[in-house]
């Protein structure tokens, strides 16, 4: 998270602050420019902590830079889906229970629904849309097609993102390791067996076996 270099500018009343915080978009409609630079602070026992109702952040998503003004309550999932129209990342449980919104932040798999957008400032994000290199699918994407590692396809992006990072860290996994690595993702159609097979075959492909 960014530290405290932000200066206190355009202080606003607590009432406005709460308004901006809770009724986000309403605030945005009223005074986006005023709030753009806005930093407020709260006093705690440890001293003053800056609180941003909105913050300008820069994300590198699939190697493309985006500078956005985000509300502090917005999750990375909100920003990807609603602001950047990267709807490949799905909202399923929206509270970190199903892995459907898994993306890579600085190459680590995270649940985008539990990750505040402001925390992603300056970080490199990879989503399902950025996985293929041009027309060439990532081996995991290709094996999901070849071995039918999906049914309705809604949980698929989350599984694929989790799997690609897993295979980087463990290029030659046992079936049990694959099972364990993907146990944070729920497939309601119930195609786990074939998802595991797809990942195992992708691992072989990537090792050139």
């Amino acid at each position: 998270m960014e530290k405290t270099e932000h200066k206190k500018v355009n202080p606003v009343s607590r009432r406005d602050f709460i308004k901006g915080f809770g009724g986000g978009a309403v605030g945005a409609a009223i005074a986006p420019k005023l709030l753009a630079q806005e930093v407020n602070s709260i006093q705690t026992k440890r001293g003053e902590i800056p609180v941003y109702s909105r913050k300008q952040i820069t994300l590198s998503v699939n190697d493309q830079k985006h500078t956005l003004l985000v509300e502090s309550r917005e999750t990375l999932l909100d920003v990807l889906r609603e602001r950047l129209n990267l709807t490949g990342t799905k909202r399923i449980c929206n509270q970190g229970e199903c892995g459907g919104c898994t993306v890579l932040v600085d190459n680590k798999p995270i649940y985008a629904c539990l990750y505040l957008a402001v925390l992603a400032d300056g970080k490199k994000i990879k989503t399902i849309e950025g996985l293929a290199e041009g027309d060439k699918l990532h081996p995991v994407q290709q094996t999901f097609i070849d071995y039918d590692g999906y049914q309705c396809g809604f949980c698929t992006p989350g599984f694929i993102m989790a799997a690609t990072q897993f295979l980087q860290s463990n290029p030659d996994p046992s079936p049990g390791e694959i099972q364990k690595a993907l146990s944070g993702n729920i497939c309601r159609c119930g195609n786990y067996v074939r998802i595991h097979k797809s990942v195992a075959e992708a691992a072989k492909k990537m090792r050139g076996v």
Partner: protein
Amino acid sequence: MAKHRHLEDIKNSNLSYIETARDTRPEIPAASEEMEQQEFKIISTHTPRVDGHKIVTGKAPYTHDLKLRDMLHGKILRSPHPKAEIVSIDLSQAESLPGVKAAIELGVKKVSYLGDRVAAVAAADEQTAENALKLIKVEYNPLPYAVTEEKSKEEGSPQVHEKRKNIHKFNDQKRGDVETGFAEADVTAEHTYRTPVEIHHPAETHASIAKWDGDRLTVWDSTQGVHSVRDGLAQALNIPISKVKVIKHYMGGGFGSKLFVSEHTVAAALLAKQAKQPVKIVLTRRENALCVGNRPSSLQTYKGGVKKDGTLTALSLINYTSGGIEQGDRCAEPIWDVYKCANVSVKEYSVYTNTGPQRPARAPGHVQGTFGFEGFLDELANQIDMDPLELRRKNYTLKNQGDTGIPYSSKGLEKCYELGAENIGWHRRNKKPGDGTGTVRHGLGMASQIWWGGGVPGTLADVRIYPDGSVDVISGTQDIGCGTRTFMAMITAETLGLEPQDITVKIGNTDYPWAILSGGSLTVPSVAPAVRRAALEAANHLKEMATGLLKVPASDIILSDKKLMSKSNPEKTIDFTKIARNLRRETVFHGERLGLPQGYAYNSFGAHFVEVEVNTKTGQIRVIKVVAAHESGRIMNKQTAESQVIGGITQGISTALFEQRILDEATGTLVNPNMRDYKIATAMDMPEIIPLFVDMVDPRINILGTKGLGEPPRIPIAAAIANAVFNAVGVHVREIPMTPDKVLNALRQKEASL
């Protein structure tokens, strides 16, 4: 717009949708053509999905993902009370919140479950809509309620429905005389089995977008039936069907919960009308758990009589089932149909509760009924010291209704037994349940399955050929994850001598030819024959066109390898694209799924064989291996069919071991409205799964001899697991989910009775 109609008032027409669909034509022609026996090149192979690339790159557009210009976001205010009268609703504060564009009452005077809809708002963004809900003032007059079956059944319990008692008999069927049958039996037994309410929890929560252009309404819906939603919307809004269009591109699971129009879809249309802007409503995970369906519970008491040689002399079932404010599920089919038995009696009662309405859940009634009945059969077999598979074989029949009805058009269940027993190693089972020793015990169990799956006559498809040689296959059906696009492309390609990739599949739109909703294992046996017939029309037309060029009769021409060629002289060929060019304009060929010849029963069959491990100290059950043998006629695409079997088994394991809706009796609150507290099977729970198909072709069901496969693999698995646990430890756990506490309790009771 005039007042909209409430869906419960038109629900009856919805529920009988499948039946009425049969009557869309004054007279449905019987299937006249011979079933095709030839070998196919593409049909029945393992073919990867034609839309796989879109899915794995995140480009497949689901309803959640769609955005329209000026689109608003709608939210629904839901009742915090399990039952209450609505005294007043004040929308004024919500309406005056900046960003709010529409606010409506949903016209209910009484709410009958916690989560029932009250009012709705639409605003520029979701957060504003959410905030607006908090500004709606509703005065409720809370009324006494009953949220559990036990409470509802009590004497003097609050009435859920004004005009109907809490316990309502909806099924009473019998044949023969059970008392006579019991008197003939060497052994009788009586046991009670219980299944909980389950929640569908599709990955993509229910979602709709409504947009008006004057008096015409377009709805993008996460649905299993575009035509069914269209018709339901027209009824609810009192507008002509011709003014409504429904579109569904991709859908993230439904399992029966998305078959018909929903309240939130109607609300989106009403809000959009008021706001004069498109409105999108996406249900939250909690709303999904509360308001858009669940699988009814059951409490099934079976009594059976059997002779020492295994002959079933009498069977009876009394079932109490709760679908919340709706009727429960008919669970009688397994006891009624699968095995030879002259004397059967069934009585089923709905137990109404103040909880969300049920909706069909993959194999409604059959999942519950099979868990009870197939488990009961194993207990009967044990009492006469018979191999449970032998008991089933002993009472095998080729006629429906327990040998008292008409012949099955085809029945491959015996073959399923053979395949399953061989592949699981049935001889390895404990000869007497609970024979094993040690803390962790192994056991084998099996169960049979019956389902419908004949398909719906009147389903239509078009094949359109363009002068450049490109080809569409078009039908108002939908792909709900089972591979509809792919089998349509395969059949068209097969018939026209092309490859599946050459075919553009157009589905999920009510502007396309009518097709039945995708549920009840209906899609393949309805759509596949229609596509085949349209493609055959096209092929015959092209052959006629080629006769002059090839100088051979049409009967000598085949379509293969992107060519039309002479069978007698393969040198004589003409490219598909050349013939297509001669069409000069795009040409459409129609196909229809014809009627089912009368005098036969059309059912799909299967049997699951399961190996489990039961830890007698912790009560934990681990499913190690499942062999699933299914007879669903000719399989269209083995690749997706196997996935469907694997999926059904996974969901069944989840049912057997984990899933159950939990309500707080005092407040009516759903305690586990998410995907963590509502336990769903994950990767860690997976056994080895071997899907097998009995390769047989139904001789008359349709032109391709294919039956449905959607529900079958979901049906027998929980019973097979329970029977394997029985085989392992010698006690039958008669209630799902078979959580460790229930296993330990059952073991303790067994010890106490020794």
